């Protein structure tokens, strides 16, 4: 996957974006393919790598628009809407649901703008799919998540194990663990959920490419790929797909 010829202006425009918004770092997050046009997504970070993130999207790599914030209403609607993104941010998705309530069928129409759906889907993808190697980020004494400058990379044998990768999101599973389970964890590094515990087992595909790069692919979100080169501090992830969750996983193993 790569950016098309039209989009090699990404580097330039991201640099401009960074200076305009006074970000510390700007990442190219990925691409969501629509029918007529594709969205390019970028993220800018100020101090805390996890919380101070702002997400932008662009259709032409020159103008970047801030993504609208997501609230519960939008989240619920976006879970019900199916189908591809069109490429037009103002497109209205409509879905009619028939529900049987007390013997009477009632129809409910859900409407959602493409921009909002994009934002909600993005949030979901990051929640499910953003992975980083264990040890790459640490929570410092102030509680701020920062890059670990001492991160030398995972060992090659560890790099192919799922337990060496963590979800880059607010920890959910971690808080449910008992103290005994948390015994072996280091609080500075293990403040994130481990992807080994994702259900169902096997929803991550780990491959070693040519012996020196490890690629993880998420099966829930086809197109989400994370990579890490063992024994170096190089890692990253990006998404290049349709923005649709694959709910058929249980049938596919």
């Amino acid at each position, binding site marked *: *996957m790569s950016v098309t010829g039209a989009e090699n202006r990404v580097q330039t425009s991201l640099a401009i974006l960074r200076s305009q918004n006074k970000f510390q770092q700007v990442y190219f997050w990925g691409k969501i393919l629509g029918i007529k046009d594709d969205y390019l997504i970028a993220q800018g970070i100020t101090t805390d790598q996890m919380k101070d993130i702002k997400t932008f999207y662009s259709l032409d790599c020159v103008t970047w628009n801030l993504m609208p914030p997501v609230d519960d209403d939008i989240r619920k609607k976006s879970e019900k809407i199916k189908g591809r993104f069109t490429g037009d941010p103002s497109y209205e998705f409509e879905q009619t649901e028939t529900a049987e309530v007390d013997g009477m069928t009632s129809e409910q129409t859900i409407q959602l703008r493409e921009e909002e759906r994009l934002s909600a889907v993005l949030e979901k993808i990051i929640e499910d799919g953003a992975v980083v190697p264990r040890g790459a980020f*640490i929570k410092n004494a102030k509680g701020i998540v920062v890059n670990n400058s001492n991160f030398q990379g995972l060992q090659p044998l560890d790099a192919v194990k799922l337990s060496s990768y963590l979800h880059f999101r607010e920890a959910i599973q971690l808080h449910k663990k008992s103290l005994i389970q948390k015994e072996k964890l280091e609080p500075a590094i293990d403040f994130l959920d481990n992807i080994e515990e994702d259900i169902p087992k096997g929803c991550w595909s780990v491959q070693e490419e040519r012996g020196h790069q490890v690629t993880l692919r998420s099966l829930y979100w086809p197109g989400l790929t994370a990579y890490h080169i063992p024994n170096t501090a190089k890692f990253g992830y990006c998404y290049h797909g349709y923005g649709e969750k694959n709910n058929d996983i249980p049938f596919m193993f």
Partner: protein
Amino acid sequence: MSSAPSPIDVRPESGAASPTSGGNPEGECTDNQNGINVSVNEHKYQEAKSYMLQTSTNTGLNLYDHLADMLSSILSKRPGNIVDSFEELSKKLKRERAKASEDYIYDRPVKPNEIEHAEVEATLFKASDEEMESAMDDEDAQSPVPNIIELGAHFQAAGLSISTEELYRIYFALKSLAEKQPLQIVRFWGKILGLEKNYIVAEGEYREGEEEEDEDENAEEDKEEDENPDEGDEEGEDDDLPKSTYKPQPLIPKEEKGSGANKRTYFVCNDPGREWVKLPPVTPAQIGVARQIKKYFTGRLDAPVVSYPAFPGNEMNYLRAQIARISAGAQISPLGYYQFDEEEEEEEGEARENFIENPEFEGVSARELCDPSLGNWVHHVQHILPQGRCTWFNPSQKGDEEFEDEEDEDEKEEPDEPEPEVGPPLLTPISEDAEINSIPPWSIKLSHKFAREIAVAVIRSNLWPGAVAVAKDKMFENLYIGWGHKYSAENYSPPPPPPVVAEYLSGPDITEVDDPTVEEEAALRAAQQEALEEEGGEELEEEEDDD
């Protein structure tokens, strides 16, 4: 508690620079003036130092040495903002120290995967060296392998590609394939991702007459149909077990090599440099089931495919079936590139199967190819009918012979002649393709919006995500990179199992009837008695059971 002050050297022994951090007591500089103070301070200092030299009961380290190591490492490396990651450095040093002391076990030399890979790939480059020498003599020999490096650049512009590094390796692998198998054309078809390993797929067409016969063809192909069982039990034989009326679907034979879905042969390998494996021809049954299931590929060709309906084959066959479906659905070419051979006779009723390159093709500009009506692109792979083949096979032909020995011809129904299935003929423009849930089946755009001179037309399939075609002027190519599944907006649901077949045919012996009530029984007996009385009426049986 504290020992008497002994002449210990104040400065640390490990050769670091003089201690700069706080916590160390004053040195000997002021011992002239404050003799007593110094001795007290020195006393405190010795105490502190001996405390720091205490060995930990757990790890055998002591604080003094550890701090000394830390400071010497910091001062020699001078990392930035060390005060923030001080603890990290401390842990790291401890880990390293622990490792060093444990290494009395010889490391078993495990070949890292990287070296194994590199060795496998080295064979690729070696082969090409040998070929270079022979090719120098034969300059006219046309390589059957297309220039995928150049095509790769176009695909990169299209946004779907494989890194140039890998493309080079694939190129050499294809060349070695072309040497080993007498192929006329070899194409890089694409890459199918799997859970453990990926597949690199090459499409090849054999030179005429050079194709070998497959030795291990499916023996099940030649099994005869089960005999049609007689319908209806014969009356009088009550002990007969019910015979099954299940008639299996007539086996539809696969298409010959070189025609229909088996027109081209496919080879796969996991990584360039490994052996190419030839995929067996695909059968209509496999395509039929492949349409109903959705499974991930693992990367191992011999892996079983566990599914409902049961897939007749293993992963190798499933892979071949999906490749056939993707080729039929998503391989397209600009209009006019291929044409039907004028010299070939067209048989009546049969669809045209073969085409040749049009020698007078002048090329279609990228802008025309991007015409949203999609009229400038055609399918050049035959559509697969619902039956699973490209040409219709009439299954009742075989059955006619068996109908001669029927006993009860009345019971046997005349099977209706199945309707022949028809599909769009070869070289149909893609504008005729059906929409998917009101989404157009293809998305088309130019690769560079603002640099039209160098732009290529990029067309992506929405039905088979990952299938892309690029074209410009006289060049065109198709490529597939993906998981190998069709797109569906709705979630997958497996087909329901077939209804339970009736065991017994309904008839008077097995139909359920309510037991007669007491009144009915009494009425019947009364009627029978009347009949007996009429006949002679001498014998009367009194029924004593009145309830």
